[in-house]
């Protein structure tokens, strides 16, 4: 399986890094920039030694480790092979 997991900071959560990048872009002359938010993604490869659907498995990774539900949301994109 190959999969991608996108992790977003929740809307209510302040994103200091995004804010800093926004300011930096502006000071480089890109004055049109209104907002920047930073997220991360994971590209994961696995073998097939697990049961259940690939998507469900990826969600488990998120719940068990990859995502902190207090501040983050996520999306999963799995490709079974």
């Amino acid at each position: 399986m190959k999969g991608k997991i996108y992790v977003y900071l929740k809307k209510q959560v302040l994103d200091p890094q995004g804010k800093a990048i926004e300011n930096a872009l502006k000071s480089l002359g890109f004055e049109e920039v209104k907002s920047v938010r930073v997220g991360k993604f994971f590209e994961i490869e696995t073998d097939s030694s697990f049961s259940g659907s690939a998507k469900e498995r990826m969600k488990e990774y998120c719940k068990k480790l990859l995502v902190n539900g207090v501040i983050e949301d996520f999306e999963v994109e799995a490709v079974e092979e």
Partner: protein
Amino acid sequence: MRATVIEFLGSNCDHDMVYFIRDVFKIETEVVWFTERDLKNPDIVLLPGGFSYGDYLRPGAMASRTPAMESVREFAKRGGIVLGVCNGFQILCESGLLPGALLRNKTISFICDDVYLKAENRETPFTSMVDRILKIPIAHGDGNYFCDEKTLEVLEKEKRVAFRYVSPDGKIDDNWNFNGATNSIAGVLSENKRVLGMMPHPERACEKILGSEDGKLIIESVISFLEKTDG
């Protein structure tokens, strides 16, 4: 009194914490490796600071999912006393023992500096002896405390903010809240007030030659609390 310090892969303030408890306070101290489940019967568990797992993914994330932390959770549920400093605080939030999360500092950079702390609630196991403004170092990149509004309301109402960043003369002041923490929060307590997470390092303020001894008041408070409850 017996203390246990948990060591995770990559922890780098573990020795400092052990020195603080064992050498400065002469308290019997066990060191427990993160793969172990037996906490060795402590009165207090200490989670040290310093980059477990390199702070990769999120600070504290990987450490909070180790066997030793499962035991710490049970220990806390039974009313045990737990102190997490810096990365230890991050681990406590990640493991759900404390609410909220620690975001990147508002400066985006790592900050090492002295901060001033005010104990907001003196009726906790950690603060009864804290009768003055404390001067204690911070050293972190992710210490910007965050929680949602509802949680914040609960924390304030239940007096679960243990410490706030203040100016040297004790006033709340954004200029002295270096990392940008919500409501200048430097330390948070669990519902039963027996779990404390804090970003500043009391173990680095334990001898005059290091510039401050203020960190000792926190452990002195715990000692006095345990003496009272034991006897």
